[in-house]
């Protein structure tokens, strides 16, 4: 786990050190890596018979967690909204 996080921290440091040069193509890299990883994840899920048999159940759990998380954050944002709405939002 720490390897993954330190890869990102190293990236931030490298990106900051070479900030004179704008690395625009990095977003293309990110997208390509994401596509590749999602493809590999699909492959792994598809090849796993246990997961395929339970797909409906996993989808149900996913829906419950998404609804809970989204509603919870919306209500929390509403609480903050009530304290700032009468004041200027940005200077």
């Amino acid at each position, binding site marked *: 786990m720490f390897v993954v996080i330190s*890869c990102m921290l190293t990236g931030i440091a490298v*990106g900051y050190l070479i900030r004179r040069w704008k690395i625009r193509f990095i977003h293309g890299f*990110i997208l390509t890596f994401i596509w590749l990883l999602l493809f*590999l994840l*699909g492959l792994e899920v*598809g090849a796993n018979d246990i997961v395929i048999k339970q797909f409906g159940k996993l989808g149900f*759990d996913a829906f419950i967690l998404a*609804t809970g998380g989204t509603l919870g954050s919306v209500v929390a944002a509403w609480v903050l909204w009530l304290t700032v709405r009468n004041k200027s939002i940005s200077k």
Partner: protein
Amino acid sequence: MKGSLIILSFFATGLLLGVFRWFPNALLDYNISFYVLCALMFSVGISIGNDPNSFRQFRSLNPRLIFLPLMTILGTYLGIAAVSFFVKNRSLTDCLAVGSGFGYYSLSSILITQYKGVELGTIALLSNIIREVMTLLFAPWMVKYFGKLAPISAGGATTMDTTFPVIVRSSGKDYAIVSIYQGFIVDFTVPFLVTFFCSFK
């Protein structure tokens, strides 16, 4: 939206090839996804460190809105904790790890697969896609009943890219900077919080 569909189609293609076993075994045997993940995280780091606006843009914000990402995170966790009773055979920390994706389904599902296995990884993928889609579909409704910060919170880590246009349309242009700020902060926390909740047995 188009970006999400492309990403989904990569997942779907992999899924089909996997079900019918149309791939060389070496693809899964050598843990290739771990190395690709490291390369991805390194690239994400570079894109953050390389952008001078990353560190500068926050100064023009209303001080109280600094807390929006915190409200997003806490609200998500409270909501997840409340519904976790309906999710059988999963610990609270597993549920919170899924919630810690905050809509960033690609990264969170990859990390959770790596730490906890494909089952929870698949839940994370589906759950965070559903969160993003809910934000895209219900943003105007959220603004109407819960104020202009609501769709920004619901969008979680996606509010500086995929859900950004919808948020600006429903909350107004004044909130564009808030949306980018919140997306940046929450996005940044995803790998840390997912890793944290996956570290529990």
